[in-house]
């Protein structure tokens, strides 16, 4: 990376401050909410940009990874774990099996698994107490509950997402093209179905009352009116870090390997690039980005609903990446911020999903390389420069008394 590559990053930080100042000065602070949410969605899109634009592997299941992060975080920070803490392992298994369905599969597990491991539940929890893993709170009815601290939940949520991405990625990434799209689409539907059918995840109601995520000092991620500006900056900085990480990956030899795999997997192999390892790596990384976005956004919104798991959300991410230019991170970021903001403000009304589908179709038909491309910008600059030069020349000549014959008049003659 040289200094020129950092320029867009500096511009990003500058724009972050400039937008904040403009909004604060004009007193339209309500815009912060949508911009902050757009920041988080953009993190998902950047991960997908690495996967699709650079490595050339499509995923129609990224709403799934977003949901894994968001739902795990919401569940862990709102569910009451106090009864589990004080029960035996046997009861824990019983409860877990009840959560996930009617089949009493816990009976299949050796009864004495806890004893075999030699770890009583209390000790497990005791460790949790030492590290401050559990914090007291209240549920919707004012009853006291004991649930995971957001920071502990963060690790569990992200690890879950990474684990599932590895499990899914290994078999699925052997597929190519349409088949990969279909397989990831199926994954998205599975996640959506699990969420809809699981009591723990609130079924169709989603999960609400997600507490604030206290970072350091007075900084906390929450949707409160007073913290709007702070949260705008927190989200902006998280996005910024993700951006820097992604840019470094793209510019490194790993980035080159990804593009080589995109170009031709067999040729990449003949150069000693282990295609499967890199494909899996970037798949897991993009899933991790999506989960990070989910984790933080759920704290910001304070709740999560089933619409986030919908397949159409995945389609939306894909269409943003396509419209932004696939392998141009900054184009994708600009496109994501613009489209997400407009969509969240509700300008598309009830045609929201149709609009994103339309964008995908139009992009594929007319702008297969995306809207924000250097080449297009160069053409525009060249054209305007030529036009202004011609105007200036014309004016100069007119001053000297030379008037150009109009082309139309020539034709009439």
């Amino acid at each position, binding site marked *: 990376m040289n200094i020129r590559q950092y320029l867009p990053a500096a511009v990003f930080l500058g724009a972050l401050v400039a937008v904040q100042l403009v909004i604060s000065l004009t007193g339209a602070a309500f815009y912060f909410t949508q911009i902050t949410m757009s920041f988080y969605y953009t993190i998902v899109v950047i991960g997908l940009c690495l996967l699709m634009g650079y490595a050339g592997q499509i995923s129609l299941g990224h709403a799934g990874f977003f949901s894994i992060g968001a739902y795990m975080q919401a569940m862990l920070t709102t569910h009451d774990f106090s009864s589990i803490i004080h029960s035996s392992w046997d009861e824990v298994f019983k409860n877990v099996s009840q959560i996930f369905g009617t089949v009493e599969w816990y009976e299949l597990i050796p009864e004495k698994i806890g004893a075999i491991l030699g770890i009583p539940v209390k000790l497990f929890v005791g460790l949790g107490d030492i590290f401050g893993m559990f914090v007291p709170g209240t549920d919707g009815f004012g009853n006291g509950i004991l649930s995971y601290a957001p920071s502990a939940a963060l690790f569990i949520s992200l690890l879950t997402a990474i684990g599932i991405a590895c499990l899914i990625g290994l078999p699925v990434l052997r597929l190519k093209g349409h088949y990969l799209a279909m397989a990831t689409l199926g994954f998205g539907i599975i996640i959506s179905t699990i969420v809809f059918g699981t009591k723990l995840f609130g079924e169709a109601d989603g999960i609400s009352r997600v507490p604030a995520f206290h970072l350091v000092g007075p900084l906390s991620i929450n949707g409160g009116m007073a913290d709007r500006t702070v949260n705008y900056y927190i989200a902006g900085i998280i996005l910024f870090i993700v951006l820097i990480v992604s840019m470094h990956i793209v510019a490194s030899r790993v980035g*080159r390997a990804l593009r*080589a795999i995109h*170009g031709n997997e067999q*040729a990449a*192999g*003949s150069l*000693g690039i282990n295609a499967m390892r890199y494909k899996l790596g970037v798949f897991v990384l993009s899933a991790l980005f999506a989960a990070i976005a989910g984790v933080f956004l759920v704290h910001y919104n304070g709740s999560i609903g089933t619409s986030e798991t919908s397949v159409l959300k995945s389609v939306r991410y894909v269409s943003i990446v396509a419209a932004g230019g696939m392998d141009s991170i900054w184009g994708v970021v600009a496109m994501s911020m613009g489209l997400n903001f407009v969509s969240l403000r509700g300008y598309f009304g009830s045609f929201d999903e149709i609009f994103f589908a339309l964008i995908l179709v139009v992009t594929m038909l007319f702008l297969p390389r995306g809207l924000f491309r250097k080449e297009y910008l160069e053409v525009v600059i060249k054209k305007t420069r030529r036009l202004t030069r011609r105007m200036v020349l014309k004016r100069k000549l007119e001053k000297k008394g030379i008037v150009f014959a109009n082309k139309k008049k020539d034709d009439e003659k």
Partner: protein
Amino acid sequence: MLTIRNLQSGYHKLRVLKGVSVHVGENEIVTVIGPNGAGKSTLLMTVAGILKPFAGTVTFDNTDLESFSAEKRVEAGCVLVPEGRRVFSTLTVKENLELGAFLRSGKNEKSAIQQDIERMYSLFPVLQKRMKQMAGTLSGGEQQMLAIARALMSRPKLLMMDEPSMGIAPIIVSQIFKTISMLREEGLSVLLVEQNAKKALSIADRGYVLETGQIVVSGSREELLENHDVGRAYLGKDYSTIDE
């Protein structure tokens, strides 16, 4: 350097190579010629580790390559220039070259890689001119040069080339072959697979003729050039007598 013994290989259940033995010595150019479908590319892909052999052994530098993955084989110094060039068309010429040195990632390698890139530019001056161009916009001959240069970037001991003359102007083919013999002078071994037998035999020390998965003739360049059957089938000699 490379010893292939009784190699049997193919795709799924289809056996293409039916027991092929080929030897490439140190600092030697060996060519395998043969018609379409003889198994020439299959042979190279098996040696490169892209295909798994059914039977037989491949020994490189006195080590059995059986347990080596494709990446390991590149690391060991046995690299393939695939058929039809396969350059990364959306990457620039320079990025293609850098990818060739993918497995060389040590701390002191950066300047060495840069030096090697310069060396490739001196071997193929046209690549320097096209340095920042997308590889997909190069002509066929230039792409072939790039593919060879890219393979050389891993500093191989053995370069395997699959039909480098395919679809390229004859004058460029001669130029490429001249560069290959030059590289041999510097200590490179080459296994060259070709349909263009005349061109291949012009630079090779020895050659094998592969037909339907079996070696039918082998010998030194002179022997092959004088062999009546080879001459008629691959070098276009004696055709007038057949017509009559």
